[in-house]
């Protein structure tokens, strides 16, 4: 008899626990609208000799997780033997109006470094022209100077490195990479 009482009690307890559970998993988290994701890397180059000569290139991926970027504007044509002042912008275009992430990079300038790596064969020299707020100040790279040489084509890799420690303003291998994209550059 006792055996049965025990079994029945146990079964009741089990079923009580079973039915008393909440189901919070049915409410799937919505992406936080205040969180910004970099969807677009934009280069704007202004010819130092002729400020009306402006060119723009954009590397864009509006669905940032699927590996299917829009590269239609990820190219730029520059004049040979010229000097350009270039500014770099990071945008979140999943929102309207687009969020400007460049500001936040600048706010945390001391922990960021932008690196430019022209492919061999591309006659392009890049120097960073802006500085962070470290003491002494170190390069940042949101502003830069492009110097072109003879006619050539090739990729320019632009990378935003997050360097929470160890930043020295030159070493690009430190830290983790927040953005790393390639632009097809034509010097003609």
């Amino acid at each position, binding site marked *: 008899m*006792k055996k049965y009482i025990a079994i029945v009690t146990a079964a009741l307890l089990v079923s009580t626990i079973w039915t008393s559970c909440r189901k919070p998993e049915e409410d799937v988290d919505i992406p936080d609208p205040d969180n910004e994701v970099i969807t677009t890397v934009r280069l704007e180059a202004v010819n130092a000799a002729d400020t009306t000569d402006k060119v723009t290139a954009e590397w864009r991926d509006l669905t940032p997780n699927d590996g299917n970027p829009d590269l239609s504007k990820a190219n730029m044509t520059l004049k040979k033997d010229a000097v350009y002042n270039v500014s770099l912008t990071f945008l979140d275009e999943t929102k309207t109006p687009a969020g400007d992430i460049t500001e936040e*990079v600048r706010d945390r300038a001391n922990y960021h470094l932008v690196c430019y790596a022209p492919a061999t064969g591309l006659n392009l020299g890049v120097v960073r022209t802006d500085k962070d707020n470290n003491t002494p100040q170190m390069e940042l790279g949101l502003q830069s100077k492009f110097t072109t040489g003879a006619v050539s084509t090739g990729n320019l890799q632009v990378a935003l490195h997050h360097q929470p420690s160890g930043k020295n303003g030159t070493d690009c291998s430190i830290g983790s990479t927040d953005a790393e994209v390639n632009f097809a550059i034509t010097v003609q």
Partner: protein
Amino acid sequence: MHMQDIGIAPCLLFIHLYKPTIIVAHIILAMAMFIMFVGDAQRCTAQSCNFRISGVVTDDQRHPLIGAIIRLETDSAKGDVTDTGGRFSIHRVCPGHTLLTCRADGFSTGVAHMHITGNSTIRFSLNADKNQLAEVVVNGVRLQDIHSLSQVELRGLERFQASGKTLGDAIKALPGLNAIQTGPTISKPMIHGLHSSRVLILNNGIRQEGQQWGSEHAPEIDPFVANRISVVKGAASVRYGADAIGGVVLLEPDPLPVAKGMSGNVYLIGQSNGRMGTASATVQGRTGEHGIAWRVQGTAKQGGNFSTPHYYLKNTAMREQNFSAQAGYKYKGLDVAAYYSMYHTRNGIFEGSHAGNITDLYAAIARERPVTASVFSYDIARSYQDIRHELAKVGATYHFANEGKLEMNAARQDDIRQEYDVSLPYTKDPTLLSKPQVSFQLMTHSAELVYTTPSRNGLSGNMGMAGNTQGNVFKGIRYLVPNFRTYSGGVFAIERYNTGKLTFEAGARYDHRWQRVYQRNASTLQTYHTTLTFSNPTGTVGAIYRATDKLSFTANAGTAWRAPSVNELYIHGVHFSDASYQDGDSTLKAERSLNTGITVAYNSKKLRATADVYRNHIGNYIYETPQLQPVTLLSGTFPAFRFTQDNVTISGVDASLQYDFARHFTLQSRATIVRGYNNTADAWLIYMPADRYENGIVFNLHELRFMEEPYISVENVSTLRQTRVPQGLDYAAPPAGYSIFNASAGFTTHIRKKKMMVDVTVANMTNTRYRDYLDKFRYYADNIGINFIVKTRFSF
């Protein structure tokens, strides 16, 4: 085999059931016990009684007591008197519940309740003060529910030396076990080459449910909650349900105290590397002979940056706080118990291990040492993980008059895991900056009902049913895995037949699992769900042949299964710890394994040796396979992996040996050899442990001045280079083999009759630089260097 605090409750029940008219409790009690024992004795003769209980009796200063009388109260014809060394031996003991008493003139009486399932040893330490309790240490083989599976346990000194370590670290020295690590603070148990969701952990009888799928997700358990840590190697799904493909790690607290009064212990542990300190205290008692037994336990642990032989590992500090409480009450044949434990840890993740993309990862691998020189610090910066785990359990056991018992338990677990990345999110919202990038909350409710049949004519066994439901809620700034709800249930039965030298065992189980996954469409933001169900029968057959008192053979063949985990089904995106782009496959089927194993054990006075040989065939083994095309994201290029399944075979040998080759000297050797092969792809399996050999010598005295049982030991741990690896699956070649030396010395002493244990260990004595294949940090940094560890345990 533990002291089981069954006490006299069954006897009261006995009276209640069979002699209800008699009132004079004491006399009746004695009579009832006598009747019960005679009954037991009669039953024993009918079945095979072929076990041995041996041991030693000492006074509280560890001097052997000569002429102490040991009686097997449950079989009054048996007993022994201790010899000049305080030793005794009782043969032909029947399996099942056994009550042993030990009496010596002028000393307190020792009482031990044991559940005999094999040869056992016991040590009585009697107190000259009759009001003080005798100390009883049972060191038997208490087999877990599937007897024919290979089982190992941390015992005696090994258990003490393991205190303060993480669970993975504590058991990795056992033969057949390894630990898969993410640096010095995160380690997971690996049994026969399998880990994470293929190894089940039972904490106080409850399946540990956390985010077990990742190799950097360590089990959320404070090993101080359990004095007994044992491991069942092999397919154990029949008893424990899904996931027990590699085996089961069991943590069990000591039984609650049976006697009135208070007792407890305090552990204080300090180590030089990481300047880590651990304090753990337990207080327990019983309000009266028929009162409530209780225990309260707490642990606090803090460590700073660990150091390799040449540099500190930046941001490897950790903090941990744990608490547990339990209470038990007996009424007649009914035991009720409640248990609660809380675990909280925060672990810094080594700064040199962050990789935003594959370029970063290769740069980190190429570096001789981490970029940033570090110093010692207890600070934890981003990135870190913060983990909380709560377990609440209620249980009841009813002991029937026929020695059968019905156990019931229900438990609730709440597991919260939060990961904070090194990079802050890009946002203008300050509250978002303090949020974790990834957070999971897994809530599990479970219940189990098990009936253990009484031993009759050599037959014994148990049967039961178990069920659980889980809800997992994912929140995060970056997507990782979807939410889900599961309902799982299973029924099982295991039966054993014991004939003299042979035991046969067979068991079967059926499990069903229903899983619904909730996701949100990224563009329409509509929630949708997908439902999967899995049904699996499992079985086990085994035999134990005790050829002689010393030599036994065990063989088992069993099946186990595991449903694909939610990340294997649905992960889609960058997995930062690997800098890889992972894609789940929602069509994956359940893994099914067939495991066969043979164990040979030899136990003589001077030589104790065990060898396990096993072969585990796993069908539909789930693993990541590289894709031809890397994935281009804005943050760079990532190698792409997709979860897929193949048929694999893991086989190996575990061997251990202890040989008392001279007076006071013992040789200890262990070998762990594992081979994993993908039969479908015709390639070796990744992350299989490299061959490991451990050899040591222990020098042990009986007594030296104030020290009781002082010892000095030196051991060498040698791990070979893993050469059997698949091509193109790893970012770096396996590291070179290594050989390190560890030394320990310690003793037991009594200060004002209170027992104190001390152990001093020097790990990696030569401060050797090495990297271990199973440590994820091998890509970035060396393993930790020399470490001085002092452990003390004070009992009161």
